[in-house]
């Protein structure tokens, strides 16, 4: 059903010009990601995973092809409209957590709400609530430097979830964590982040977490080699 499709990419192409050399990062990608699905993009370094996730997240424009997110073509949107769409509908989890070091956990988590026009106090209150959900209720006032890597990634997950986005994009969420912590983080993502009205896209080459995926898209040389059902 068309309404089940969260992300619909057709013939996506992106070429980087690196000082005269053309590097094809995406060479005609066709991919659909469904609501309620955890899709993993895997492949060797330089295969175009990061470029694809950047286009899907609406922070990079493709050269050709279309990418519709919940039926919206971000390429044709006005800049301000696109910002609003991204602020409301997309959550980010990064490899290096990318928490603001001078903000407390609750303040970090409150940023997407503030960007969506929620008052700071209310945003921080809701931030503290979601931190409770990810098991960091007692660390709301801690700075990132006072948290372990796993705890920082949980804060990042809380930040990605707090504004209830429909799409969450994660870039190597476990690569900076040990096996056990990475496993916990993936369990948390699956339990807290995934539900029928939301899709998760995870870029990874950490084979230890492939088992959490619903489907896995294998990429190589800017193309999708195969999409396999992981279940």
């Amino acid at each position: 059903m068309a309404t089940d499709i969260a992300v619909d990419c057709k013939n996506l192409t992106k070429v980087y010009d690196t000082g005269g050399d053309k590097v094809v990062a995406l060479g005609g990608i066709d991919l659909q990601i469904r609501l309620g699905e955890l899709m993993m993009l895997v492949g060797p370094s330089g295969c175009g995973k990061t470029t694809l996730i950047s286009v899907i997240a609406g922070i990079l424009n493709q050269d050709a092809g279309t990418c519709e997110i919940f039926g919206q073509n971000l390429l044709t949107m006005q800049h301000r409209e696109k910002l609003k769409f991204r602020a409301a509908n997309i959550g980010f989890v990064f490899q290096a957590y990318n928490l603001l070091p001078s903000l407390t956990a609750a303040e970090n988590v409150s940023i997407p709400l503030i960007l969506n026009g929620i008052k700071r106090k209310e945003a921080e209150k809701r931030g503290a609530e979601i931190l409770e959900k990810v098991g960091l209720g007692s660390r709301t006032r801690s700075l990132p430097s006072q948290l372990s890597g796993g705890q920082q990634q949980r804060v990042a997950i809380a930040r990605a979830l707090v504004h209830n986005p429909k799409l969450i994009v994660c870039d190597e969420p476990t690569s900076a964590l040990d096996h056990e912590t990475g496993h916990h983080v993936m369990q948390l993502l699956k339990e807290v982040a995934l539900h029928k009205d939301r899709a998760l896209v995870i870029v990874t080459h950490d084979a230890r977490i492939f088992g959490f995926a619903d489907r896995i898209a294998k990429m190589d040389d800017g193309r999708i080699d195969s999409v396999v059902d992981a279940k």
Partner: protein
Amino acid sequence: MNHIALKMLMGDRGKYLGIIMGLTFASLIMTQQPAIFVGILSRTSSFILDVGYPDIWVMDEKVQFVDDVKPLQDTELYRVRGVAGVQWAMPLYKGMLKARLSNGTFQTCNVIGLDDATLIGGPPMMLTGKLEDLRRSDGVIVDIDGATGKLAKPALEKDGKPIPLKIGDTLELNDKRAIVVGIAKTTKTFQSQPVIYTTYSRAVGFAPRERKLLTFVIVKAKAGENLHALTKRIKETTGLAAYTQEEFIELTVTYFLKNTGIPINFGISVLLGFLVGAAIAGQTFYNFTLENLRQFAVLKAMGASNGTLLRMILLQAVLVGSVGYGMGVGLTALFGYSMRNTILAFKFPWQLLVFSGVGVTLICMFAALLSIIKVIRLEPAIVFKG
């Protein structure tokens, strides 16, 4: 997002203090050096303000500034008194004479001779004694800085403090006896010489014999008289130069600005302070933005507009600018206050606050502009790069 901007700024205490220190230094130099400059310039005309009463100063037409003495004949006083619109005109002597101190050394003093009858033009504030005491035989009034400093008597013990002049002490002015009858507070002069007030007739008696000894004629205009019209009339009638108080101050200050190295010396100090402050503050603020680029990119990826990021950077710039400016100005005020009893010339008018405020604003705008350009050009996709 203001709260986030401020926490980003203050989160790195070292960098935050570095920016503040740079701006404080710039603000300090942009106020302290000009305050000394203004202080020195104001001293050039302090005598004119201390005399106070007259509306118009009449002098030889070749006089270039207040200490440029070109005496007039005594008869000029009567010619000025005869000009229509003059309520009164009094003689004023001003000259540099050598005083012989009790230890045998000599000190050049600024001797002011006041009209014997009215004593108009006397010191602005008497500390001990009365102005009328000048009518006593050989009476002189000495300014407090001179009495406690250059004219003070030597200490009785070796390495002891000099003994300030007091009422009843004597001086020798050009081999003539002068008795201290009062101590006055005067505004320090450019040359910082002791100031000695006496009557006009006694002052010309102290002075070496010359054909002409009248330095100025000071004039009060009749009520409602247009001062510019009166100065013009005095010039036409007597052939002398006549200036209102403001014109005479302007003449004096202009002379020092045009004929001394003071403006260029201080101008260079201020310019260097501005450039060094701009370099330190601008560089540190720009580096701060560069180091936070990833954080700005994260905010951009999450949907923060360029306008939001621009406001955040401007807020950061305004905050560091305000704190740095306040601290710099505060340090300058503290410096001036701590030096209030020294020989240092220091004057801190409101115009200097505006001047340094504009300077610090320019530095902050420059630093913020560089940062803003960097952030606006920033690609949010860098957040996915490890």
